[in-house]
């Protein structure tokens, strides 16, 4: 199918591309909706461009991004690799805003879509956006209610921002996932709850143009021969797995615990379940990725289950306090 008239893209950079970037966790489906957007652009709108993703050793739950460059057909597409200067940025996990410094490289007057329960003004401050438009959407809730996935409402907003035909998007969703078409269309339609706000340039935050990263901390002067790491100096100990949790997590109720130790041996991220002096002390949320295997094996006692699956958003203070971690230190001290 070809359109009658040439489709006009809402943004264009020096090479003639409209740059769209999706930031997500592995497993969120950013790759899939990126490909769908590209397919609509090529098949339905007779555009050209490029779809590239961040590839590496990334597993489910680790930050990843997807780049879509769109341009008029006839412009030779010669680029490769991910893009760093988006016009349209979709942030599927708001916890990635700060660690990934997502304001760096954003084009002036960019459009930013964020999956969040916060409002555009709050997100603007978190993102330190110089100017542009922020669209906030609780995609997690929309997806849960529709029994769909968070990528679908985000896809809906991208279609809207790019001005792509709504019908083509719906058809693409139905054709791609025929079995869950109804749920996906419900999630797709859920974007009516999105909040839009424009932020003209007011000097509050500066544009931070992309500059080629200077590499990591360790360079050729300091890398040990063979890339050897000193375990004590280069430990993953200082990291946190918090960003890998996708909304749900186990919560520990010591009153119901019979210290049966089943959770300890069912945990896929050893270090999460803290045992000291033969007793279950709780969950170290720096380790826990929220798979909830421990909840699955936790026995039902007369006081209920000691481990239950909860929404992380409802227990943010428990995660922040992360009391169980302190028992590890006590154990070490003793």
């Amino acid at each position: 199918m070809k359109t009658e008239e040439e489709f006009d893209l809402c943004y264009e950079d020096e090479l003639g591309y409209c740059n769209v970037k999706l930031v997500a966790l592995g497993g969120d489906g950013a790759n899939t909706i990126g490909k769908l957007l590209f397919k609509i652009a090529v098949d339905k709108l007779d555009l050209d461009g490029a779809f590239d993703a961040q590839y590496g050793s990334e597993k489910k739950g680790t930050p990843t991004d997807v780049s879509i460059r769109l341009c008029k057909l006839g412009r030779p597409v010669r680029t490769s690799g991910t893009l760093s200067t988006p016009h349209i940025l979709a942030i599927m996990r708001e916890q990635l805003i700060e660690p990934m410094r997502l304001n760096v490289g954003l084009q002036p007057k960019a459009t930013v879509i964020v999956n969040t329960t916060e409002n555009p003004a709050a997100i603007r401050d978190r993102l330190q956006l110089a100017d542009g438009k922020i669209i906030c959407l609780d995609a997690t809730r929309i997806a849960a209610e529709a029994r769909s996935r968070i990528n679908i409402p985000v896809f809906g907003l991208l279609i809207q921002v790019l001005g792509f035909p709504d019908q083509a998007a719906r058809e693409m969703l139905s054709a791609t996932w025929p079995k869950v078409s109804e749920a996906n269309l419900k999630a797709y339609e859920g974007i009516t709850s999105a909040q839009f706000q424009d932020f003209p340039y007011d000097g509050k935050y500066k544009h931070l143009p992309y500059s080629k990263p200077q590499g990591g901390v360790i360079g050729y002067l300091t890398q040990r021969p063979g890339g050897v790491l000193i375990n004590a100096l280069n430990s993953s100990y200082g990291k946190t797995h918090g960003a890998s949790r996708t909304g749900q997590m186990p919560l520990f109720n010591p009153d119901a615990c019979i210290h049966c130790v089943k959770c300890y041996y069912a945990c896929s991220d050893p270090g999460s379940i803290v045992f000291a002096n033969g007793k279950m002390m709780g969950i170290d949320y720096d380790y826990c990725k929220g798979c909830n295997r421990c909840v699955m094996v936790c026995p039902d006692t007369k006081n209920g289950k000691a481990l239950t699956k909860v929404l992380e958003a409802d227990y943010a203070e428990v995660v922040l306090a992360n009391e169980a971690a302190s028992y590890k230190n006590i154990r070490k001290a003793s």
Partner: protein
Amino acid sequence: MSEKAYSVIDRAIEQKVCIGGGNLAAAEAIAAIGYELEGFYPITPSSDVGEEISARVARGEVDMVFVPATSELAAISICAGGAMAGARVVDATSAQGLLLKMEELPAISGLRIPMVLNLATRTVSAPLNIKNDHSDLMSILGMGWLILLAKSVQEVYDMNIVALKWAEQVQLPCVVAYDGFHTSHGARRFQIFADNRIVRDFIGPKPPRDLYIDFDHPKTFGAYMNDDLINNKYQLHLAMQDAYRLLPVIFQEYAKISGRRYSMVGTVGMEDHPPVAMLILNSAAHASEDAVDRIKASGRSVGLVSMSLLRPFPADELADALSGVRTLMVADRADEYGAYRSYLANEIGALLQARHNPARILNRVYGLGGLNFSFHDAVELYDQALSADQGEAVADFDYYGHWEGDPEQQILTPPKAPAPIVEKTDISLNEKLGARMNVSVMKTIASEMPNRIDKTSACPGCGAFLNLEMVLKGIDGQVALVYNTGCAEITSSGFPFTSFKVPYAHNLFHNGSSTASGIVAYYEWLKKHGRVDRDMTLLVVGGDGSGDIGMDQLIGAAIRNHPFIYLEYDNNIYANTGAQLCYTGFKGMMTATSRVGKAQVGKTFHSKDMVEILRGTHAPYIATVCESHYEDAVMKAREAQETVRNGGFAFLKAFSTCPLNWGTKGEDGPIVARTMVETCMFPLLKIVHGITTLTYNPEALGKKRPVTDMVPLMGVASAHLLKPEYADVVADLQQEVDRRWTRLKAMHESPVL
């Protein structure tokens, strides 16, 4: 001059738009050509080529033999066999996959077997890195293979079609090389022929050659040769010369059907005879075209030269293209360490000298390990060349894109306190805990046994570290770890961080067991000479994939009875490379290379029984463990350690959950694991000096369940087997599970079996 004449062909042959990456383009070409056999072993980033073909074979759309092999060497040797028998064969690989095939590459060219090998270029490890550069490609320059290059997704498709015709005409094998990820995975709009017959007509019938399957005229292949070998090689040299003459003809014929005209050397901006030019290959050459436009727009004149082939070397066309150049930037995506310059620069230098071209050559090594090369980078390299051309001091050779690092800043763990090493290395903890396993002991272990591993980036719900932790809970004293490449490896030591608190080494793919042999054998020698006195328990960790490709090395270590524990975490699938078939998977299982369709129902053969394979090594301790029976697992880990302390080899196989590749929820792992044990698909047993003991007998407890109880649990890997039309596959699976279980029961009953 070599290029520029892009003529539009009068009679357009119908083509259709396709969207995808270079791997899809290669698969489209393979399907269109009508190959008869593909040997396959997965390696990122080339795996999708085989996955796509295997899916089409399963759906009945492509009629060819698809053989998932146990290694890259096996895969290409399967290709060699098929081709000797007369088949049109194709393969795909990357990086060390190519190096593992290396043994067979000169055999194939020396035996004059035509075939095509797609190479999604990737850096050669170590350090392990899955991304792009040309260090794999450049290592095969002298192997007697034709080498075509593809800068873009479209070119991957086109060059694949050209490659087979060319290879068959001159009876030589041909590599089609395109950049891993940049080209293999970046989705682009490209064109394919609407009708496969166009492609098949273009390639034509197989030219006659000597074939193995010819019982009327039996022939001998692979004869041993002494002095005559030099003549074989001279023929190879002549065949390369023929190939050099033939390629332009094939390119021209291909232009007629496709409308896309290729030449051996491609140029941009060279028609203005610029004094400064750059020679660069593949995706980076493509990106550099944007740079040429930009620099031209700023009023300066530069040119770009790239190549469509590396072997044979297009000397005349290059000499022609570079004839007016004063300063030439040669950008190499690989370093020929210790050579005068890197690969391309040396070859170009020799050419220019022979053609009396006095151009100055600058050589830059760029883009190693996948560092992206954008048009900005091309502009920077041009700037360097322009400066040199203006007489400024610019180094002849350098790297581009590397960085110094800050000598002041090396500790990475703050703001938290320095990481603990290991809290305790009490070598008698197990002794103190006593021989009995119960909840109390398990709790004490959970509290007292040190954690040897810190945070990892494994998927939520992954079984790898769960199993490792469970096994390590049975092992006291000083632990040392050796990993094969795999999920557990890649998620635990992403530079510059490490998850390990104990000595740890990763060695490639399948070499862990031999690496461990070297370590423990030397440690024994040190002990013998009184130079060390500390106890050490070395544990090798490998997935089920490294137990396929590394089967021989594992068996070797077991037979040598080298004192270490080998732990295989088995999730029935090649999880790290993208869910391809593993030999440990059950019959009927769906994977990325054993699809379900009208022509195939998942995996076509029963699971590899690694325990029974190792039984034949008569290793002193062989056991299976599962998280559902963690007390049993911890006990077996203790026994394995005891075996090692007594100087023997121990093998532990753990069932491991993989939510990512089965498409299951992370929290469902415990149920899948228990069901695997209770269906006897993963029986719990130990073989101690040949005596088999079933450590859990669900049948005796009235808990043995049919395999149909497992089928709904393993997500997309098994869900299709619920369909009534696959009842025969399930029945076959049940029969095989029961056959093996019955034998195990008999062995359990009798110490002499």
